[in-house]
């Protein structure tokens, strides 16, 4: 029983780290703001959730689990809303998505339509 818990905790941590890392690579490599936002917004929530679940399995103390659960719930609420607000603000302030631009050379340079 103990070993199952340990294994699953390790698995969750690894998966979470992998997701976070892919988000990190995404924020560096993707060509424009909206694609970067996609990379971060998607992986952030699940990666954070995975790592927190992995931590929860590590500790038998109920107070610690409750605190972790609170962080988890808040991440699930806050992270998508922040992403949503950010994307909306960017769109309203005339930041044009890559696919809509007239000339896209694929680089990260900013274009002024």
């Amino acid at each position, binding site marked *: 029983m103990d070993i199952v818990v340990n294994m699953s*905790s*390790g698995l969750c*941590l*690894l998966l*979470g*780290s*992998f997701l*976070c*890392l892919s*988000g*990190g*690579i995404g*924020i*560096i490599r993707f060509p424009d*703001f909206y694609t*970067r*936002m996609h990379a*971060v917004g998607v992986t*952030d929530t699940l*990666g*954070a959730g995975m*790592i*927190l679940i*992995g*931590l929860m399995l*590590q*500790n038998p*103390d109920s*107070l*610690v689990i409750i*605190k*972790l659960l*609170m*962080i988890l719930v*808040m*991440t699930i609420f*806050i*992270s998508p*809303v*922040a*992403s949503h*607000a*950010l994307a909306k*603000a*960017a769109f*309203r*302030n*005339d*930041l044009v998505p890559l696919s809509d631009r007239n000339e896209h050379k694929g680089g*990260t*340079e*900013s274009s*002024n339509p």
Partner: protein
Amino acid sequence: MLIAATLAILVVMMMAIIRGFIGPTLYDRILAVNMFGTKTVLLISLLGFVMGRPEFLDIAIVYALINFISIIGVLHFSDSAAFGNDPHDTGSTKKES
């Protein structure tokens, strides 16, 4: 496993800092700050376990809350008229310090 996860988070934080530095538009920087904040929450929770005192998760909770507040604040101010006209960084950001 905890150490591995901590290292991974640190690497991701580095990436966020890089994007914050080069990010051509304003919103890239805000995105980098947002991501950095979430990763800080994770890092602090992980560090609590690594150091063997997981009672200090309060700090991580504060981070999650304050991060939200500061992102909303930044968006609020970037919406104002003085900023809204030009989403791109004015001036050359790469040349200077």
